[in-house]
């Protein structure tokens, strides 16, 4: 048969997910060595150049620290992206740290993760004085650091590359640790193994027809796991990764046009905001081939708006918590089958993953709390105390309880909401209890009740006196919480209690809705 000859040609060997995360990048190097691997504004690096830099930095890490866990304190710069690879090449785990987050929070993460080496960019350098006792610090662009350098640092040298060949590594070892909002006010560490994120990358390569001619946007903060889709799926396919900061990410028209982006990732909030501004007309993004939405429920109207702007794009809605390596279900948007809930279904479970719906502790055929097991499932929180109540045994297997409620319909799973106090604001996962704890910590007698109403975070504050000035409190919160967790409004009130003496959340929520409407 004529077709047989074509099939006999060399092709990509079948890939297994049971290998180190950086081996997916090495696939990209093999497929497209001279092509662009990384673009930041007007600067670009080829696959061969990124690989060479990562070897050099990995060698420097091994020479000076022999690290197990490498903190990458950098704001979407060459240090952050190459830093992830360098940590993995050195056989270590990477821990992304955002220099825009308060230094106190970053210090807590460094300590909780047991970071024993840091890679720092000029933006991150400003925090070094406040991070306590420092492990060895790698400073690839020391010459561009602002101000005098008060701590000892190491600059990678050319000869370091000899030491930095990619580690063989076990797929069972950890690849990265991310920290999510925790209900007690302490950030919660989520360790992800190579095999967890590998299974996700493999599922995405099967799901999207992407290759070396594609250009991915890199929109998400690197402390947020949706960025792991952008970085590793782009690199596994030999595509270019175009880094946009959070302001640039709100202007897809300009960047899709100027940088030829073909794969755009977005939270539903971002699409909703663009829709509200009316700047993205039908057919305005003809070059897009794929858009991946993830991070929060996707309103049908936002998906339809995006599909109209990008008529040639596959619009895909993914769902999953950080604990299941980015996402583990997906739905290919089709305007004709919009769900009755007004949100796009989360669809079918990824290959190799299994789901069940729980009503209490028993399996329900069509509705309940979503639980998953399979190769993408993490092995438990960094602090085992956080594991309590998050896992369930079924069929002799351990399953992760997501806390999300879903319903099985004839178009797959539909997300119904959360069981608890976890909310999404502009795609960021926030425990309301974490915000309330920060209010309490801001001064004696202070307490707060937080709500997310239509994507707006607000806090009622008691203990300040009604109508008092909240400037001081707002400033204290900004020093304690990452920007995405800062309330839009702080409203001083007298305590509003139920007859049982508990905070009357229903009454306060109604009051918040009223105030936002007025």
């Amino acid at each position: 048969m004529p077709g047989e000859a074509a099939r006999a040609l060399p092709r990509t060997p079948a890939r297994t997910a049971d290998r180190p995360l950086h081996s997916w990048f090495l696939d990209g190097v093999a497929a497209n060595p001279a092509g662009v691997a990384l673009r930041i504004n007007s600067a670009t690096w080829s696959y061969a150049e990124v690989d060479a830099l990562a070897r050099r930095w990995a060698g420097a890490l091994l020479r000076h620290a022999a690290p197990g866990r490498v903190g990458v304190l950098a704001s979407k710069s060459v240090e952050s992206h190459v830093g992830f690879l360098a940590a993995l090449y050195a056989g270590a785990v990477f821990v992304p740290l955002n220099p825009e987050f308060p230094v106190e929070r970053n210090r807590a993460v460094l300590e909780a993760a047991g970071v024993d080496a840091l890679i720092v960019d000029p933006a991150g350098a400003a925090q070094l004085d406040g991070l306590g006792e420092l492990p060895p610090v790698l400073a690839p662009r020391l010459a561009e650091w602002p101000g005098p350098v008060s701590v000892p640092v190491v600059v990678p040298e050319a000869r370091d590359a000899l030491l930095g060949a990619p580690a063989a590594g076990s797929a069972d070892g950890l690849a990265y640790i991310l920290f999510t909002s925790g209900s007690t006010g302490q950030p919660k560490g989520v360790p992800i193994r190579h095999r967890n994120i590998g299974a996700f990358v493999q599922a995405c390569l099967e799901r999207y027809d992407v290759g070396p001619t594609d250009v991915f946007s890199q929109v998400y903060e690197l402390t947020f796991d949706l960025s792991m889709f952008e970085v590793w799926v782009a690199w596994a396919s030999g595509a270019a990764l175009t880094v946009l900061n959070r302001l640039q990410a709100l202007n897809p028209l300009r960047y899709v046009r100027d940088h030829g982006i073909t794969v755009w990732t977005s939270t539903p909030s971002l699409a909703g905001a663009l829709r509200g501004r009316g700047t993205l007309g039908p057919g305005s993004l003809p070059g897009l081939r794929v858009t991946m939405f993830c991070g929060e429920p996707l309103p049908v109207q936002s998906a339809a708006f995006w599909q109209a702007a990008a008529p040639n794009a596959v619009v895909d809605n993914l769902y999953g918590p950080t604990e299941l390596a980015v996402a583990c279900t997906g739905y290919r948007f089709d305007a004709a089958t919009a769900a009755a809930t007004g949100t796009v279904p989360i669809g079918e479970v990824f290959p190799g993953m299994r789901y069940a719906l729980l009503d209490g502790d028993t399996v329900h055929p069509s509705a309940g709390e979503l639980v998953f097991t399979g190769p993408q499932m993490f092995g438990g929180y960094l602090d085992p105390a956080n594991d309590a109540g998050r896992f369930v045994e079924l069929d002799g297997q351990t399953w992760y309880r997501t806390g999300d409620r879903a319903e099985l319909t004839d178009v797959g799973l539909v997300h119904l909401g959360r069981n608890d106090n976890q909310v999404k604001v502009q795609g960021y996962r926030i425990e309301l209890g974490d915000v309330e704890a920060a209010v309490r910590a801001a001064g004696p007698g202070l307490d707060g009740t937080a709500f997310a109403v239509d994507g707006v975070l607000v806090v009622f504050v008691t203990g300040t006196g009604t109508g008092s000035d909240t400037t001081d409190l707002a400033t204290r919160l900004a020093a304690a919480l990452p920007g995405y967790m800062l309330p839009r409004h702080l409203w001083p009130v007298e305590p509003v209690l139920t007859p049982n003496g508990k905070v009357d959340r229903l009454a306060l929520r109604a009051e918040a809705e009223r105030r936002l409407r007025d």
Partner: protein
Amino acid sequence: MASMTWDTEFECVIRCYLPSLDMDAPLDPDLVLSAFGLDSIGMVGLIASLEQMYGVVFPDEELVPANFATPRAAWATVTSLIAADRLAG
């Protein structure tokens, strides 16, 4: 330092993006805008307003959150661009 020499239009436009800043409270040059209701989407709106008001277009490299994090930073970003335009023009 409680005040800074910016024009009243600038102060108006900044305040209009800070829903939780008291009208009577002074606009401190080092006020952290994100603590008073300016999120990323608000920042994009602020940038568009500033571009329109001063007839400038911020280049890619200037579009970083730090350049609009406080009134002082935003004013410096605007004035440096106006100065560059004058030199070029």
